[in-house]
């Protein structure tokens, strides 16, 4: 017991250690339970958007109510984030990539009513986006439209539609183009199978795919959220990449919803509701356009931000695919078209 190491195991030291430990835990505990705070559970590419929105909203909220407010963020694949909300993450609002993921929360829990979509303007989607192609500078593979993605020798990067909302928009956009181009269902399926055959790796989220394409240098073309493609410009410079707008794309409506069950338990309803309504204000719409989403009210945005977005013709999920419930069942549920056409062993 005389050696210094012996002291490490001595009784005195153990008691001191325990006291110190409980002091540490009390300290950390008090820090974790800060006062008024909202949790926004969102999908992958919105990190930069909500960082800016949150700064603007908390400043306005504090000015109006005198109450300090922090907004915490969690990001991941849209489907995976919906799963986390179902499993009980303490989210006040869900801002996911598609209505289908919020529908899944409404179906499996009592956190919000099934009619959530009608509670906010514009289908509860304060901004829209679409799907474009990102190619390497000079477009060496000559990619112009969806048809080129199924050509042999073209390597396509897109995330996994089972876990990623963006990937589902990608998939449906490709499907819509093929339906227009071929009319015959067999040819449509052959086209999708050939396109999927050109995908070397399916990442779980849109951000993972972007990293694969831009940072790891895999693939000839990235099927990407429009905002994510512009973000790659900002991060990696315009010298390395080009955006290609296909002849037809899809109008993506990322939806937002209040999670009543959670806000009522936490007593944060007023702030959470105001937060979602804030997204429709001129100030937020300008931030939305600045982050390369398409604002619902473009008149409030900086015209330069609107001008750089390519002009596209759109299909919509509600009109062309019979809504998310049907689209999910036809294409992404177990045994849907994706399962039938994707052969990873290739």
């Amino acid at each position, binding site marked *: *017991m005389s*050696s210094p*190491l*012996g002291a*490490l*195991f*001595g*009784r005195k030291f153990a008691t001191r*250690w*325990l006291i110190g*430990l409980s002091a*540490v*835990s009390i300290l*950390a505990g008090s*820090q*974790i339970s800060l006062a008024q705070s909202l*949790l926004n*559970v969102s999908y*992958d590419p919105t*990190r*930069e958007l909500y960082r800016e929105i949150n700064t603007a909203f908390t400043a306005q909220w504090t000015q109006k109510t005198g109450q300090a407010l922090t907004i*915490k*963020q*969690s*990001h*991941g694949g849209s489907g995976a984030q919906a799963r*986390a909300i*179902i*499993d*009980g*993450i*303490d989210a006040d609002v869900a801002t996911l990539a598609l209505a289908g993921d919020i529908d899944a929360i409404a179906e*499996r*829990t009592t956190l919000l009513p099934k009619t959530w979509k009608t509670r906010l303007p514009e289908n509860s989607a304060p901004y829209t986006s679409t799907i474009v192609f990102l190619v390497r500078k000079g477009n060496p593979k000559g990619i112009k439209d969806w048809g080129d993605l199924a050509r042999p020798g073209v390597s396509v990067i897109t995330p996994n539609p089972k876990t990623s909302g963006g990937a589902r928009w990608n998939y449906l956009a490709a499907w819509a183009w093929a339906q227009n181009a071929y009319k015959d269902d067999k040819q449509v399926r052959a086209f999708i199978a050939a396109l999927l055959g050109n995908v070397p790796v399916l990442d779980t989220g849109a*951000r*993972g795919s972007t*990293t694969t394409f831009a*940072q790891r240098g895999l693939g000839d073309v990235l099927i990407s959220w429009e905002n994510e493609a512009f973000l790659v410009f900002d*991060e*990696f410079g315009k010298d390395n990449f080009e955006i290609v707008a296909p002849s037809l794309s899809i109008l993506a409506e990322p939806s937002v919803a209040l999670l009543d069950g959670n806000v009522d*338990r936490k007593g944060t309803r007023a702030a959470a509701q105001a937060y979602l309504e804030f997204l429709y204000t001129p100030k937020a719409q300008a931030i939305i356009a600045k982050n390369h989403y398409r604002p619902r009210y473009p008149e409030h945005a900086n015209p330069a931000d609107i001008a750089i977005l390519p002009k596209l013709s759109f299909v919509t999920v509600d009109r062309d695919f019979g809504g998310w419930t049907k689209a999910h069942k036809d294409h992404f549920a177990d045994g849907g078209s994706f399962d039938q056409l994707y052969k990873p062993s290739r």
Partner: protein
Amino acid sequence: MSDALSTEFIGRQKAWLRPAHLTRFALIALGLAFLSFFLFLPLAAVFAEAARRGFPAYLAALSEPDATSAIKLTLFVAAIAVPINIVTGVAAAWAVARFRFFGRNLLVSLIDLPFSVSPVIAGLIYVLLFGAQGYFGPYLRSHGIQIIFAVPGIVLATIFVTFPFVARELIPHMESLGSAEEEAALTLGASPWKMFWTVSVPNVKWSLLYGVLLCNARAMGEFGAVAVVSGKIRGMTTTMPLHVEILYNEYNGPAAFAVASLLAALSLVTLGLKTLLEWRYADSLAARRKH
């Protein structure tokens, strides 16, 4: 004369060329090449990337609020998980090494379970138990207790994956020592408590230290199980490994590597500490080993 020289030279050359020497050199070269390629190079790359934007940027990345919160959370989780695993690990190892009882083999297998189960499963177990749709979720929720996607879930998952380290190190050592010294202490009138602190624990202190250091390194570095139960709420439930991933995904490479280098440094300190203690107490260690 020239003859003598050449024979000597040939003799030396022959020694070099002796198959045993060649094999030895080849093996050493192979080992070094392997180590430098798979260990030193990546580790050096982490520090090089972290330093790329200079020291002020490095400090800024570590003092940013989300980063400090991740560092605090990592240390906090380790400060709970490691002591709990010391107590339970010593108890389990002692029970297994000293007593023969019904279910002993089962207990030994159970101690190893966290090693054989994938960390993702370890995380999902707790989601299944304490998630809103899980067995105890609704009850806990109605009492305002949040376990999954909060700090308690992270602590639980960490305890689970780091449990075997202490017990695994202690069991063989305790078994090889036998119970003679402990029995002698008892015969000489020591209370069981005194025997435990003056004989049992000092006897295995080196294995215990090993186990604790390994346990601590894993507790701070665990990714898989923690990722499942964390919910990745920035500044609240992201530990250092998760924070590194988030930063990397936000194209913030230098900050990601700054935090990664700190995490790596923590493990290097752990390793250094172990080596230092081994070196300073080499004599007593050798004496112990002789038993």
